[in-house]
Structure formats: structure tokens, C-alpha cells
């Protein structure tokens, strides 16, 4: 179980994540997107998953990442991501509840550039019991 006092808390990633053109190109190549001038709509998962994985794996929080299945995912995009953008990332554990022997954890992550949120994502993670 996730530590109850981590629910509602916001954790800041330690490093800025800078998007490169080659990262966008690789993501576009997988899905057959020829326009590589902006990142595809779900590209930001590349940044937020890594950041939230680091935060949630902290022993003080106690999420067992090896038992996680992705339940659902939402993106709000204020403006498209482009190569050269540098983002700070924060993740908030919005809720955690036990349902049918599993734990359902909702994590919001925000990517901000120059102090303004560019992308917000919500991931629902099912931690299998």
C-alpha cells in the first residue's frame, strides 16, 4: 500500500527535461507521423512516466512499480511541445484507494516551461494485489 500521508502531496522532479528533435523523430517514426515539427499528442508520457516512476518508487511512498498496470490516461495540452523545450515536472498523488484487492492510484503530472504549465497529464495506475 502507498503511504497514506503521501496522498495529496506534490513532488517536484529534480532535473529539467529538455526535448530533442531526435526524441520527437523517434516517437513520430513509431506511429507513422511525417510532421515532426511538433511532438505527437501523447509524447509527454516519455517525460512524465520517467519522472513519476522515480518519485513513486521512493521507499517513503512505497509504490511497487513491478505490479503496476496502466488503467487510463488523460492529457491536457495548452500548447504543442517542440524540440528545445525544457520542462520542470511536478507529480501529485491525487488519490489512492483499494478496490477488489488492487490499489488504484491517480497521479497528476504537470510539465511547466518558464513557470507556466504546458501539459497536464493524469495517469490511473492499478497496483495488482
Amino acid at each position: 500500500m502507498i503511504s497514506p500521508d503521501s496522498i495529496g502531496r506534490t513532488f517536484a522532479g529534480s532535473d529539467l527535461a529538455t526535448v530533442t528533435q531526435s526524441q520527437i523523430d523517434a516517437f513520430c517514426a513509431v506511429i507513422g507521423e511525417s510532421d515532426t515539427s511538433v511532438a505527437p499528442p501523447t509524447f509527454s508520457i516519455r517525460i512524465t512516466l520517467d519522472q513519476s516512476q522515480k518519485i513513486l518508487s521512493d521507499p517513503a511512498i512505497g509504490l511497487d512499480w513491478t505490479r503496476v498496470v496502466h488503467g487510463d490516461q488523460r492529457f491536457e495540452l495548452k500548447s504543442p511541445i517542440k524540440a528545445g523545450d525544457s520542462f520542470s515536472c511536478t507529480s501529485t498523488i491525487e488519490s489512492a484507494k483499494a478496490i477488489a484487492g488492487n490499489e488504484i492510484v491517480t497521479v497528476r503530472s504537470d510539465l511547466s516551461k518558464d513557470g507556466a504549465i504546458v501539459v497536464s497529464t493524469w495517469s490511473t495506475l492499478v497496483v495488482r494485489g
Partner: protein
Amino acid sequence: MITTDTTFEEKVFYINRALVKSYADASGDQNPIHQNEEFALSVGLPNVIAHGMLTMALVGKYLSDLAGGSAKVLEFSARFTKPVIIPAGVDVDLTVSAIVTDVSDGKASISLAATSQGVKVIGLAKAVILI
């Protein structure tokens, strides 16, 4: 022109082990359930499964196409209802369709659906695009 109840032509993507590996590298998600059959079986899965986010990325490509570019996608959400199972040496379909549910203030709300081998693999998929 996009109006309420506009339907978009179905598109079929194909997913195989090579594409799953490419997505693992492009996304940084190297979980072995997506690449190692032995490992996938050991944790009770029927075979290697595609990343839910790979299927969502492909639905996202469909969405970018109907919107006229990725920059026009404002919101996008989906639920992963069933895993997409990828046996070795097989191209598995991901069949995507969409309908406009509302148009207002220069934006359209879209409802999307995705099946693989006739089974719904993505549910409650919704998006808002600029029009």
C-alpha cells in the same frame, strides 16, 4: 467541415514485436512484459502485450490526422480495457474509428474507439480539437 455526428473513416494500424520494441525505445518504457515472452508468461500474461500507451499513441496519430495536425489536439484521454496481445511473427490489427459528439466555440469533441481482433481494447476515449 466538422459538425456534430460527423464520422471519420476507420483506419487499421498493425502492431508487431518490432513496433513494440521501437515504441519501448522511443518512450523509454522498457518493461519486459512488452518484449520478453518468457517474462510475460511468468507474470501470468498470455504472451507479450503491447504498451497501452503505444495503442494510445496510434489512436493519437489518427486523431492528429483528423484534426489537421498534432498542434490542434487540446485534450485526449483513454482507458485501457484489454491488453493487445502480440505473438511472435504476427501483425496484430488496431482498428480505430471516431465520431464528433459536439461542436462549440471553435472546438470539436470527439469520441474514439479502438479494437484489436474484434475486441475493444480502448474505451472511453475522448478528445477535444481545435477546428
